[in-house]
């Protein structure tokens, strides 16, 4: 029993690493191309819009207890 478990473990350890060393350079080339920064900007846009709304509400004097300026 112990030998079979050890054999299975050994087989698992002997498997090729799943990190895909051969495709890693291709992945990086796909992501970090000339469109990286514009794409990052597009992805950030919704977050920036909501952050701006939240900060506006945080600082707004119009959200006092009676809705008027505090």
């Amino acid at each position, binding site marked *: 029993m112990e030998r079979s478990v050890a054999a299975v473990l050994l087989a698992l350890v002997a498997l090729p690493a799943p990190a*895909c060393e051969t*495709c890693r350079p*291709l*992945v990086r080339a*796909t*992501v970090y191309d000339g469109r990286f920064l514009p*794409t*990052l900007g*597009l*992805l*950030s*846009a*919704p*977050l920036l*819009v*909501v*952050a701006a*709304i*939240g*900060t*506006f*509400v*945080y*600082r*707004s*004097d*119009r*959200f*006092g*207890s*009676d*809705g008027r300026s*505090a």
Partner: protein
Amino acid sequence: MDVQPRFGPLAGAGIVLGAGLGGFVNGILLHQILQWHNMLSARMPPDTLVRAKANMMWDGYFHAGVWTMTVGGLALLWSATGRADVPHSGRTLLGGLLAGWGLFNLVEGAIDHQILGLHHVAESAPPGAKAAWDLGFLLFGAALALVGWSLALVERARAARA
């Protein structure tokens, strides 16, 4: 001298925090567990190992962004805590959280799904169903934002009457 209570700091902190946490719901549930879409899956379908991993990397940037929002929301919440003019109101915070989650869905759905077409909610659904899921995502966001904002307004009105 009475200090007029201000609900804005708590509601604003809730909005930013709710948007960050709502972004995590999107990323964890729709990207990772259900695997309905990835960040750029409409432009770069994950049909090869390289493309799937590239989408995964973009999902990582998305998660980094919503993590930053969450930290920003915590910082705002911390700065609002303990202020004499900011009531300790759980309903206002909850309202802000729901409104933030809803706003995130609305803005992300409008920009990423409708305007830019970076991805769709259910990428592998038939075209009609794909549009319906995108619309449902927007409606869910609008409902969350309405419920959350109403909760915060009701709490403010209740405090004004007290």
